[in-house]
């Protein structure tokens, strides 16, 4: 059994939903377990702060819009662009990117972040660790 599994589950109120909405992300170390809590398009997500690549602090990097390859109806390239809706968590160690809402890598959907339970109660964002 892992250390995490043996620990007593703990609810942590990370703040008001408005604060998370304004900051977009709050990252906490809760007795040695890192968790990043995100707000995007009215949704809240919580991801473990460990990159599946080399274990880097994935939630502490930049947040970037997903880069897209624009292609015209004639299949000719229209160059690079930023997605207007999708935003990615970027691991500061090596640049691995993960969609904030799905936790999946844009090039390999089999690779993803580990989700933690998170909910909003009475306007407060509560993560269970």
């Amino acid at each position, binding site marked *: 059994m892992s250390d995490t599994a043996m620990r007593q589950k703990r609810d942590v109120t990370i703040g008001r939903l408005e604060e998370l909405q304004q900051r977009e992300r709050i990252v906490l170390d809760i007795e040695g377990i890192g968790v990043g809590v995100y707000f995007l398009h009215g949704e809240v997500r919580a991801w473990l702060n460990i990159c599946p690549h080399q274990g880097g*602090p994935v939630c502490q990097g*930049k947040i970037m819009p997903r880069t897209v390859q624009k292609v015209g109806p004639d299949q000719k390239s229209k160059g690079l662009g930023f997605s207007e809706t999708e935003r990615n968590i970027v691991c500061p160690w090596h640049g691995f990117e993960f969609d904030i809402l799905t936790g999946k890598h844009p090039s390999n959907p089999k690779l993803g972040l580990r989700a933690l339970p998170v909910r909003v109660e009475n306007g407060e964002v509560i993560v269970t660790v």
Partner: protein
Amino acid sequence: MSDTKDTKTAPGIRELAEITGRSDTRDVLAHATKQAARSYDDYFVVDIDAHVSEDHFWTEVLELIDNDVLRQIGLTQSKGFGGSNALLNISPGLSHQSVGGRIGHQGRREPVEGVPGHPFVTAARRGMDAMGLDYQIVFPSAMLLLGMHPQDDVEVELAKAFNRWMVEKILPQDARLKGLLYLPYNTPEVCEELVAKYAKADDIIGFTVCSTRNNAVHADCYMRLYAMIQDSGKPLAFHSGYHWGDPSFAQLNRFLSMHALSFTHYNQIHVTNWLVNAMPERFPRLKMLWVESGLAWIPFLMQRLDHEVLMRPSEAPGLKRLPSEYMREMFYTSQPMERTNMKLLEVTMEAFNAETQLLYSSDWPHWDWDAPSTIADLPFLSEQAKRNILGLNAARIFNLDTTRKKPAAAQVLAERPGVS
């Protein structure tokens, strides 16, 4: 439902900050410290390839240039458009290593105010402690492309100045830092002078040629140099690199494409020339180390050259064995270690006897660095193989003392919980 409920200000809960190009190395690498504590804290670990960000201290190097004219040009450039790239041939506008700023540690400028000693040594020591390294061998960064510089005298003068800077200013400040002497390979006679001068320097544990260049390694002008290095007993390392100006790579429209191919390209060419011209037979005691090309190219080249040599032995008449057999006696560094297919990686390591021939390298603080856990966590390696690759192979070929030099990982974490 949970058993307890807290706020983010409760005891045992800390908010973690974003990691940026100004973050302390210990914070950036705190997860590596935890990995060390978990799995390899009692290993002897040597990082064969880390980098000096010499551009941050470039004026210090320029001031050590012997030639009055080039020193004056360099220092003048450094105050103007050339800045921290004065006299160098890198193209800052083509340097996409940070992926548009997503990866901040390459070229980072962390706070070192108030810490005695050179700022580079402070940052390097933090990195060594955080990763659990007993020794770290440092290479230049921007100078990796100097082999393509059109002015040979600039390579010579910068090589001499950089070597002096390393030997006189940097390496004496921490016994865990070691260097490989930069050889200005476009000018063999100066390489010989430098080997003669530094062969017995304790902190210079080998010699390096930056692979990004078009010199044929079997050219006769290098035979005396190889003989001198062989007699020194210290290894000769070819450190690979990239060069987007290479006509073949000019077809590639993304940094990742060019980077993926060029780092293997240059060392493949040099190994091919080295073998086909039977250099291992001519310098059998010369320890050859191939740096920063990853591993996947090795079994490819072994098979490819074996196949061709078997059909055309008259074109490689100096060889007494298959190329792959010589390649199994060479040494390689691990980073950037391809590992999306564990089965392929295992077979790759078997192909060149990684247990005795592979040396861990981090490439820190460059963008595609590898933590020691990339070796320590491999599922198919024996405990002894991990220990060999992470440090004991390096100790053997570089003659390093294997007594513990690093602080305990738990101590590093306790002294600086950090923000990550």
